[in-house]
């Protein structure tokens, strides 16, 4: 469904180009949860952003191919890319505090993906939004629909983000460190929610995190990135049981020992 080939991202903020992502190649199947782990600066977020088509700064060049259901996202027109954004590919981000527009009601923001892609019927929009909010585990959906972001807690906002992303039933959900800003109990709930979405809606999830233990809980397959390159990839269980690279071993060693839930 998604294949990334020889993706290379370079920055030009100084005279010399700086390579942030180098020769990244991987594929993702339908309904799969793929994890990308690495420390900050490893290029994992840039990879995610470029798949979502959100890396369009003048001082960045991208080369290689990102093919999503037959369309090359790196080389297609902006208008074609926009038809996918929010409809087939949705994204949630690290900071639920700042990712919602502070002056717009939650309902309006949740509905947006549908509205941008042509839905005009207000009653239907509201129905869908309420349903999406409920699906995202928000019990008081009617009230939240009419609220503003500053009235919600961090966990609620991240659920709102997920509801807004899932409202158009995307084929691919990119989750860039979605739990980093949340506290541990909420973190676990959000992970559970993502797992349920994957199971019930068959949505593929690209899960970006620096936290190996989360990746282990959620993902079937894992890519380990360091300094813009993929250093190791494989089934999650294999990598944890038998890491090949020194760097991966270090990452695993760094996890505090937690009993794995069965």
């Amino acid at each position, binding site marked *: 469904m998604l294949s990334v080939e020889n993706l290379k991202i370079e920055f030009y903020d100084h005279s010399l180009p700086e390579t942030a992502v180098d020769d990244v190649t991987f594929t993702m199947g339908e309904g799969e949860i793929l994890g990308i782990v690495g420390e900050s600066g490893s290029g994992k977020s840039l990879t995610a952003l470029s798949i979502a088509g959100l890396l369009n700064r003048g001082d960045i060049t991208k080369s290689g191919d990102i093919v999503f259901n037959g369309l090359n996202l790196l080389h297609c027109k902006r208008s074609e890319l926009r038809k996918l954004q929010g409809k087939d590919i949705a994204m949630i981000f690290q900071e639920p505090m700042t990712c919602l527009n502070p002056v717009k009601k939650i309902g309006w923001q949740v509905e*947006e993906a549908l509205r941008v892609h042509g839905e005009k019927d207000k009653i239907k929009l509201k129905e869908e939004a309420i349903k999406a909010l409920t699906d995202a585990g928000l019990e008081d959906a009617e009230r939240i629909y009419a609220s503003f972001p500053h009235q919600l807690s961090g966990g609620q906002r991240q659920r709102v983000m997920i509801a807004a992303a899932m409202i158009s039933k995307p084929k691919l959900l990119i989750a860039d460190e979605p739990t980093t800003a949340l506290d541990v109990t909420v973190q676990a709930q959000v992970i559970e929610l993502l797992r349920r979405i994957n199971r019930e809606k068959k949505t593929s999830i690209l899960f970006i995190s620096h936290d190996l233990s989360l990746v282990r809980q959620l993902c079937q397959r894992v890519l380990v990135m360091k300094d813009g390159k993929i250093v190791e990839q494989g089934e999650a269980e294999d990598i944890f049981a038998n890491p090949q690279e020194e760097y991966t071993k270090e990452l695993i060693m760094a996890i505090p020992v937690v009993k794995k839930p069965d």
Partner: protein
Amino acid sequence: MAKYMLKKILMLVLTLLAVSFVVFAAFSILPGDPALQKLGTEATPEKLEAMREQMGLNDPFMVRYGKWLLGMLTFDFGKSYSYSMSVTDLIGDKIFINFTMSSLALVIVCAVSIPLGIYTAKRVGGVVDKIFIVINQLFMSVPPFLLGLLLTFVFGLTFRLFTPGGYIDYHDNFIGFVGYLICPAIAIALPKCAMCIRLLKANILEEAKKDYARTAYSRGNSTTSMLYRHILQNAIMPTITFIGMVVADMIASGIIIEQVFGIPGLGRSLLSAISTRDYPVVMAIVMLIAAGIVIISTVTDLIYAWVDPRVRVTGDEE
């Protein structure tokens, strides 16, 4: 919101009280005897005493202040020292002139700077943007009265679109009155337009970098719908506060502009009252201008609250 409004209005009243006290105290500690000034050469000790009594100068300070304050609430600002008429009759007509001039200037600022701010932000780095960076910097540096002289020269003397010094009273010809005030309003407004354009542009560009803008892009918004549906409302909020301050400044620079265009407004009365030491008139005009400014800043705060749900819904500032 109701609580917030109440708080703001209370602040407004308190500020005006404080301003009135400062103004009254400042003009009370002055050396010199208003009664003597009024009587001039006819002053005899008896007449002087009678005049003092009549003018209420023998009352204690707080009593005089209280009387003055209560008088103002009924638009009674006392009697002019120089003219034997009440201050209200002397300046009442002129408030409307300054009100019209400042309102025109405000309309010009909004009408010019909002579209241009958006446009230059959209085409940042383009030719128009670069031209406006230079123009803005230039206009911010030209004092309004100099701009007034330039406008008089170009539109008054060269193109003869208006007669310099040929002020038209609003009782005679309202359209002509407004027409005559357009040039002065432009002179006051242009430097502020330059600032507002720059501020709005900077705000839009800053908001566009924020996380919620990225979220909006991820839903397939185009740059245009992004700008109008998401960014503008956020970017306009600091601009609202700024425009409030700008209006205060424009009222003040109106005093000077009146002289350039020969408009018999509050500024001219203030100047002549200062030169003849006609303190009741000076105090009244200072209070009126201060009240205008404080009221405008309260109104901007309320508009801000109305636009920003963080204040509107929860009722407290960030």
